[in-house]
């Protein structure tokens, strides 16, 4: 029996802990991909949906107008992208925080019954008044 406990604990603080860490890493990578953070950052100032993109030939007036249109498309694109990058970043932060908490809790789980026993002995219970 004692060997079983040793094997269980060595897995818990070894491969088990590592798998939780890898799981967190995979989830973060999926979220990073879902919010297209890298793609959006690298194309931050690209015309949004190619609207008003491309070369325009003609008199200077038309060219100036096309350049302004393109600039507006780029600005709109940058705003929309920044919003999504921000939402994604917040989500990644929350996910990382939860992940770190799980990793820390993982370390204390084997001794949780001991903690529970001590709390029981202390006789403390929450009061609802």
């Amino acid at each position, binding site marked *: 029996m004692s060997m079983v406990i040793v094997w269980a604990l060595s897995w818990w603080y070894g491969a088990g802990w590592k798998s939780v860490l890898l799981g967190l890493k995979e989830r973060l990578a999926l979220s990073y991909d879902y919010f297209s953070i890298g793609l*959006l950052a690298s194309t931050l100032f690209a015309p949004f949906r190619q609207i008003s993109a491309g070369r325009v030939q003609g008199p200077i007036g038309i060219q100036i107008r096309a350049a302004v249109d393109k600039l507006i498309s780029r600005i709109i*694109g940058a705003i929309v992208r920044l919003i999504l990058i921000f939402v994604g970043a917040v989500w990644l932060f929350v996910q990382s925080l939860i992940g770190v908490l799980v990793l820390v809790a993982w370390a204390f789980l*084997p001794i949780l019954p001991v903690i529970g026993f001590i709390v029981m002995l202390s006789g403390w219970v929450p009061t609802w008044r």
Partner: protein
Amino acid sequence: MEVKFDYKSPRAAKSRLGRHISGLNEWLLILVAVLLLVAGACLVLVAVPTGWLLMSLAAWPFMAVQWYRGELRDVPAEQSENQVDAVLESSVLARLPKQPSPVDIARAVMQSRHGLFFAVRFGITPNFLEQISSPEQSDATPVWQTAMVLRDKDSDELTAGMLVYALVKQFPEHDALLAHNHLELTDIKNGIDWQNHLAALVRTHSRKLRTGGIGRDWSFGYTPLLTRFGQNISQQLAGGGLLNVDLDSHTEALDQLIDTFSNDGRQNAVLVGTMGVGKTTIVHAFAERLLDASSKLPGNLKFRQVIMLDSASLISAAPGRGELEELIMRIFGEAYAAKNIILCLDDAQLFFEEGVGSVDLGNVLVPIIEAGRLRLILTMDEQRFLQIGQRNAPLVNALNRINIQPASKEDTIRVMQDQLLHTEFRRKVTYTYQSLSEAYRLSERYIHDLAMPGRALKLLESAASYSENGLVTMNSVQNAIEQTMGVKVANASEGDEREKLLNLEALIHERMINQTRAVGVVSDALRRARAGVRNQDRPIGTFLFLGPTGVGKTELAKALADVYFGGEDRIIRLDMNEYVRSEDVSRLIADGADDPASLTAQAMKQPFSVVLLDEIEKAHPSVLTTLLQMLDEGILRDVKNREVSFRDAIVIATSNAGANRIREYIERGYQLEQFEEKFVDELINSNEFRPEFLNRFDEIVVFRPLEKPELLQVVDLMIAGVNKTLALQKITVEVESGAKELLVEKGYDPRLGARPMRRVIQRVVENNVAKAILAGVAQAGSTITISASQVEEAMSKAEQVSAIEKESGYDSSDAAKR
């Protein structure tokens, strides 16, 4: 190599522990954890501090479940060269006793999930494996040794499949035993690869795809027209990937595609290959690779979308003149402006030729393709590509050609192994390993309109309808091809058929008189074929029947088609006097769409039949040369260069060359056996047949002229034929024996054999019966008897008519011939 098995090793103990927890116990642990949590929380809520202890105790069953799922369920293999317990698959390891014998190993293997794979897919059942395994503990060492050799690396797991292989190999008569299941030892090795590959597929597809996310296409344009007139296969794939194998031929084509589109040259590629070769699958695999964030690709290709244009919806949306060209230009403009689109024209010939459902857009497309800025993939049949190239050379020159070759047998089997997962799920069936090899073998032989692997997949899919208790076996595949093609591919096993084969001569003689040698050789050939002992790469039998007219050569072919092949319509008959010019070769091998009566078209439609080449001596030498391959290998290529199989046909050529010589020999008192060989030599010497042509036949059979007693039997057969016709009216005809002899006398012509007999019977018997019916003399249930005097009277009338006709210059026999 010395191998050891340690029952007490930590890995073995963990495996056994994992086995104890699996199933119900895992759920029990979860239940305990939940109950402790709930009970503890309730106690804390009512201010009982013991609740804290209960709640915290839930951590231990929770940990046990995590440990089980993370390690114990499938204890990872360790690195070892000779320690079995360190590398053995844990589900097998958990079931082994302290000192296992081969029987114990077999039992443990067959209780594991991977062992069951071999039971279901290969028919190597637990009973089978236990029966061939030794109960002696000392015999376990060679089993371990054989299995350990199969591992690739030291760290690789020793799987249940490897143990199945080792256990079977240890059995001294394993070859014979496996043959019973239509298997060889290498097949079990292939099974191990198949199992590993399936496990890898499941691992890959259980991983979530990273496809760029919600902002992926924000830098690219909107594509409303493409959404309407095309299929975005990238989007379809994002929902769930392909179950595709990395075939060498496909990987090469994929790399070429990536290379083409990542360089600065013309951004187009045409995939050229026969239908069924996997062109569309390659486009799908290409789209999947572009969509995978983890794949190593140039930045300008990643997340590009492949959209397949639908020619039918394009044509229906723009029916007017010039409308389609305009629509296409708008679509192409949209694709170019969007900057992330790779257009695919599947079956691209539809865009380059006029016809039903197709339209020639060559003039519009060529400048765009030549400019090379729009990314475009075309798929095309090789023949069509060449045809279009003849008409539109600039188009072909502007395209980057990628040839797709048909898959080899190994590759086709691998494709089937992957694709059958879809079919199994959809049709709720399981395929055996043997069914895959059989699907390859039979589809190669009988399905001509597709290339591999498409043709084998087609057959495999249709075999699902013939599954037995949800299992698709070799028999299911054979049934599928037998039902769809009308051939017999399985060995004769049913009582009826066996009986028929054993009594084939008697059955044929029910409608054929004498010619026992000819009937015998044909019957033997069929028996060999249906017992599975013939050469599979030749026709069932090839025979040359020589003899005068009217001795039963053609009749034997007909009788065979009727008795065994399922009806006289099972005969493919060619009068070779219609093939007297060298140009007639093209008619012989014409495409079924142009000439359904060509030899190849008929054989393609009806491969299980009698091929009768009447009056072969009249055919042009070029025609005979063309037929050589059919006689030799059972294969003939049609004008489209498709292989048409004659390997399920009996080929009978008839000739009356040298008929006079045969008569001379018989008149001089020779028996057939005495002059047969000499006669064939004479035919060669007189240049009537070339020796290489005669050599191609399995048997050359000389038919002898019929004698009077035999002709009497022929009369009986013909009268029986008349009675068969009259059976509906319940009238019977009887001919007196004197009348029969008279019929023979009048109907026999030494030059024409028994052939005039039919005309005589028509004149005498049928005419008399017709008159009796019309006069009301013969009614249902009555019997009409034909006497010698009636024959005499009918024949004298006929002779008078004939004399008058001769006087007036009209010959009735000419009319009959006409």
